[in-house]
C-alpha cells in the first residue's frame, strides 16, 4: 500500500498518542524510565563517536590546509562549525535512529505480537498514548543534551588529536574555535535534534505498533523503523536548514 496510506495512518496514530493521559503520575514514571533507557544509555556511544569524529575532522582539515596561505586557526574554526552545524545534530540523530529507533520498534512490536497491547486495550488503557507519549517526551527532552555534550566532546577530541599529532598548537585551536562564532548555530542544532528525535520515536513507534505476525515481523519492523527514520532525518535536515539558516 502506498505512502499516503501510511502517512494517513501515522497521523491517526499521533492523534491517539496526544489524547489526554489517564493518570499523570503513571505517565511521569514511564517518562523517567524512558529517559534512563533511551537517553542515559546513549551517552556512551555519543561520547565515543564524538571524540573520534572531532579528532578526524581536525586532522583532515589540517592536512587539507597544509599550506602557508591558510591561517592555522582555520582548523579549529572548521572543526567547530562542522560539529555545530551538522555532526552533533544530524549524524548523532542517524546514530540514535539505529540505537533507539530499533529499540522502540522491537519493544512495541513484541508487545503487539504477544498481545500485551490487546491486554492494555482491554483494561481500558489508551495503549498508543501510554506506550508512545513517554518515549516521545523522553527523547525530545533528552537528545538536546546529547547534542550539547557531543559538541563539547567533539571539540575536545579535535584538540587532543591536533595537538598530539603536532598539526597545530593549543593557541591556534582555541583562537579558531572562538573566531567568528555564531551562537545561533547552537540553537539551530538543538532545534534540529529535537525534531529529529520526534521523528525517530514516532516513526519507530508506528512501525512497532502496527506489527502483525511473529518474531520475524518484529525484526522487519525494527529494520523499517531505522531505514525510514534515517530517510526522514535527511529529508528534514534539508527542509530545516533552508528554514532556519536562510
Amino acid at each position, binding site marked *: 500500500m502506498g505512502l499516503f496510506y501510511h502517512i494517513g495512518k501515522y497521523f491517526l496514530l499521533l492523534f491517539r498518542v496526544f489524547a489526554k493521559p*489517564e*493518570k499523570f503520575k*503513571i505517565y511521569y514514571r514511564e517518562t523517567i524510565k524512558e529517559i534512563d533507557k533511551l537517553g542515559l544509555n546513549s551517552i556512551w556511544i555519543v561520547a565515543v563517536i564524538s571524540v573520534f569524529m572531532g579528532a578526524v575532522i581536525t586532522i583532515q582539515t589540517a592536512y587539507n590546509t597544509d599550506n602557508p596561505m591558510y591561517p592555522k586557526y582555520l582548523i579549529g574554526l572548521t572543526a567547530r562549525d562542522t560539529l555545530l552545524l551538522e555532526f552533533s545534530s544530524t549524524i548523532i540523530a542517524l546514530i540514535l535512529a539505529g540505537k533507539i529507533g530499533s529499540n522502540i520498534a522491537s519493544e512495541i512490536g*513484541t*508487545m503487539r505480537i*504477544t*498481545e*500485551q497491547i*490487546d*491486554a492494555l*486495550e*482491554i*483494561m*481500558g*488503557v*489508551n495503549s498508543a498514548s501510554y506506550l508512545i507519549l513517554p518515549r516521545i517526551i523522553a527523547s525530545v527532552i533528552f537528545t538536546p543534551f546529547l547534542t550539547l555534550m557531543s559538541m563539547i566532546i567533539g571539540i575536545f577530541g579535535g584538540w587532543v588529536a591536533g595537538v598530539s599529532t603536532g598539526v597545530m598548537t593549543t593557541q591556534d585551536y582555541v583562537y579558531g574555535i572562538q573566531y567568528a562564532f555564531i551562537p545561533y548555530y547552537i540553537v539551530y542544532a538543538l532545534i534540529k535534534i529535537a525534531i529529529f528525535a520526534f521523528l525517530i520515536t514516532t516513526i519507530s513507534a508506528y512501525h512497532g505498533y502496527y506489527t502483525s505476525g511473529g518474531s520475524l515481523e518484529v525484526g522487519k519492523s525494527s529494520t523499517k523503523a531505522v531505514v525510514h527514520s534515517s530517510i526522514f532525518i535527511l529529508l528534514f535536515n534539508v527542509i530545516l536548514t533552508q528554514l532556519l539558516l536562510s
Partner: protein
Amino acid sequence: MIEVKNIAKSFNGVPVLKNIDVLFEKGKTNLIIGQSGSGKTVLLKSIVGLHDIEQGKVIFDGTVFNELNFKDKKEMRKQIGMLFQGGALFDSATVEENVMYPLNMFTELTYSEKRDRANECLKRVNIINANQLYPAEISGGMKKRVAIARAIALNPRYLFCDEPNSGLDPQTAILIDDLIKEITVEYNMTTIVNTHDMNSVMEIGDKVVFIYNGAKWWEGTRDDIFDSENEELNKFIFASKLSQKIRDLKNRH
C-alpha cells in the same frame, strides 16, 4: 449475560465470522470450541471490541457495547477481564506489578492496599512466593495463572479466556479450568472460554458453542454433545483415537 446478534467480520474481503447469533449466560462457563483457524479468537476479540465488527450487535447485560462511544466503551472495559492465548503479561514488570497494574491505572487505593489486593488475587490462583519474579522466569502454567489473577484484580463482571490451557500438561490444564469455573461461580461472572480441548468441554462446559469455518454450527451442553448428530461436530469430537474408543465402548452397552 452477553448476547451476540448476527455479527460478521472479514479480513481483506475474506469472511472469518459469518452471521453468528449466540447467548452467553451469567454465572456459567460458556465454551467456544472449534478447530484451529475456525475463528474462535476473532469471535472473542470481536465480542470485547478488539476487532470492529461489520454488522450486528454485542449486548452486555442490556448495553449495546459495540455502539458505545469511545469513552463509554473504555468505562465498560474496566468490567472486563481477559486472559490471552499467550498470557500477555507485561515483560518489563514483575508478577506482582503485573497484577497491580490495573489497580494503579484505575483505582485510588494506596500502595499497600493495592499490594494486598494483588496478593489476594495471586493467592486465589495459588501463586505464592513468586511476586518478585519476572514473566520470563516463571513457567507457562504459572503465567496463565498470573494472567488470571491480573484479569480478576478489578472484580470484573465478564471474563474472557482464549485457550487458557493450551500448551499445558493435562493435570495443570484441569487445574486452570477448575479455577476459571470456581471464580465464575464465586463472582457470578459471565465467562466465555475458547478451547479446542475436549477435556475442558467435559470439565466445565456449562454451555458449548461449536464454531465451524466462522459459523455457529451447533450449541448445547456437555451432556448432549456426545449425542449430537452433527457431522462436523462429531468429526471434531472424535478426532482422537481415545475418544473413538470411548464412543465404541459406550455403544457396546
